[in-house]
């Protein structure tokens, strides 16, 4: 079996990217606009767009890295684990990774809730977060493989987010071109 046959079709990779692009961009825009009140004090409107371009390029990187990592994972694991139901399994894991990453942003605050001794609390809290990731991800992957309902739900989700996610990715690419133009040309 050739190496290329271990990877999913390109269209499925693109669909996976569209699936994870939505939560990644919703998070990015939410955080960006939550800081807008601070930015307007010091930057003009065009300068704020300039900063947004950096945010969007990094969101594009997020999408590519996450979709790429899941594709690579599917290629490395036995076909029955992920590759046979690539879109459902990888999208489900991708979405869970986004949710988990959003929760992980609060790890420091969780650690401080338990004790002010950060050196003691951090390793435990981080270990618990990592454990939670796998406790959900592994059964999730199994569910995506075995449940036709999950497969249908994921497919329906991708159908519905395609246009919005595509728009997000288009703006990311536009931002990338702007930054290349400003910095490398």
């Amino acid at each position, binding site marked *: 079996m050739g190496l290329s046959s271990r990877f999913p079709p390109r269209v499925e990779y693109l669909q996976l990217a569209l699936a994870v692009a939505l*939560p990644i961009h919703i998070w990015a825009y939410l*955080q960006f606009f939550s*800081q807008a009140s601070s930015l307007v*004090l010091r930057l003009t409107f065009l300068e704020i767009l300039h900063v947004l*371009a*950096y945010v969007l390029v*990094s969101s594009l990187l*997020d999408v590519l890295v996450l979709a790429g990592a899941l594709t690579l994972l599917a290629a490395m694991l036995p076909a029955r684990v992920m590759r046979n139901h690539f879109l459902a399994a990888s999208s489900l894991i991708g979405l869970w990774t986004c949710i988990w990453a959003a929760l992980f942003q609060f*790890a420091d605050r969780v650690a401080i809730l338990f004790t002010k001794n950060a050196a003691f609390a951090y390793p435990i809290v981080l270990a618990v977060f990592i454990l939670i990731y796998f406790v959900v991800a592994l059964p999730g992957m199994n569910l995506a493989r075995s449940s036709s309902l999950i497969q249908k739900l994921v497919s329906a989700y991708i159908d519905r987010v395609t246009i919005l996610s595509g728009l997000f990715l288009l703006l990311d690419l536009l931002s990338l071109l702007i930054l290349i133009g400003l*910095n490398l040309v």
Partner: protein
Amino acid sequence: MRINRREFLKILGLLGGALPLIRPRPQARLNAATPGGPNLLLLVFDTFSAEHMSLYGYGRKTTPQLERLSARATVFHEHYAGGNFTTAGTASLLTGTYPWTHRGLQLSGSILNPLKGNNLFAALASKYQFQQSYTHNPLAQILLEQFRDAHPGLYLHPIHSLTVDDDRLADFFKNDYEYAYWGELINRRLAEPVLPTNLILSVPDYFFQLYRVMRYARIYREQFPHGLPINSNGTFFVLDEAIDWISTLFNTWQGGHAAGSLAYVHLFPPHESYHPRREFLQLFQDAQPPIAKPPHFFTENYDQSFLDNQATLYDQYIAYVDAEIGRLFALFEQTGVLENTIIVLTSDHGQLIERGIHGHSTPVLYEPLTHIPLLIWQPGQQTRKDIYLPTSAVDILPTLMHFSGNALPTWGEGQVLPGLGGPENADRSIFTLEAKLNSKFKAITIGTVAMRKGEHKLIHYFGYPGFDDQTECFDLSVDPGELNNLYPASILARQLKEEALAKIETVNTPYR
């Protein structure tokens, strides 16, 4: 044999005429050939409070080297920062204008773009054609990038050239540093408690930062038991390396007869967090801590034992900085650099560790935060000169222009320093402004202005919800600790308030 960066720098220093760590751009090297008068070193230590320096009478012996070196310097005893944090203070120093003019009002901000040509480097270009700068501080680098845009003759060394690891994104996108800095700041988990915009990559970045902290703590445990010094962007550095680099740079200029060269070096220590080298951790343990003062209405609720502990660490860190300054001058003395170099040593702002407050991003502009050191060594000066008149950071640019024989700029708000050719006006008003909560593009309606005039200091808080129109006034000649508020009882205090309010109104006029 493996040679580490520090040893490499020392070898370079010994070679004397060796190349600087980073080669200047070809254009800058061409310019270096033009001979002129003495070279100039503008050396800024971030967050260096004069109120914590034994040179200025502090109870702990924090600056023995500067006391010794001041025997050949002009020492300014009542020198004030233009702002209370890096952006505002540094911009005042380098533009000769107060924050209400340059508008570098916010943390990580920049000055108004149309004003970026009004800077020290451009103003001194005819005298100092070979100009270099280095800073550990990304906030200062934002300003320097702006000045370089207006004056390409200024060569900026990247921050990572003197750090033990790189900062990343902002250096890569070097043509628009400020926006890349903001992009990096809000993409990564750098500004707690603000969450990063970057959802996925911020997670491995978080673990990478943890790895870096642990790695450098292990490598440098012997020298720095409290951890390696770190800047506000999470980048580690060793002060000694920067000192070696300055020495090497000036030795190179000395060897190459590159007279008419200028270096602006803005080093991060003694900015918090405090990381004194091991030998300084023994200091000040038995000494009396500074006198406790009552909490301010803008208290951050730090308890006194925490503040005492931080003050001791800060003093130890200052002692480390002082020792490194002493080492730099010893290197300079060996190679004769002092004979043809003007050295200006100052800070961008001070540090407040009292009244429940720790830091400098506070609206509370007491002396430890606004009163900063200023020492100037001129070639051939053999005796110490003490100046007790109040002076400001905005005076440094006109003074250096005066030294260079240039006409003073029309846009500056300072004057030539007294004792160095400037007027000796005891009744001049000196200002420090805190106005972070305002737009860079609009009138200043919320903030704190401190005004030093003669022996008195007025602090006026305006626009703060719940604390609007609060005023304090102190006679520093009898109340240096600023404990006895003369306002509103004193007529003079009321007059000073009127003057400060009139000044705010005047500077706001263009934005009304």
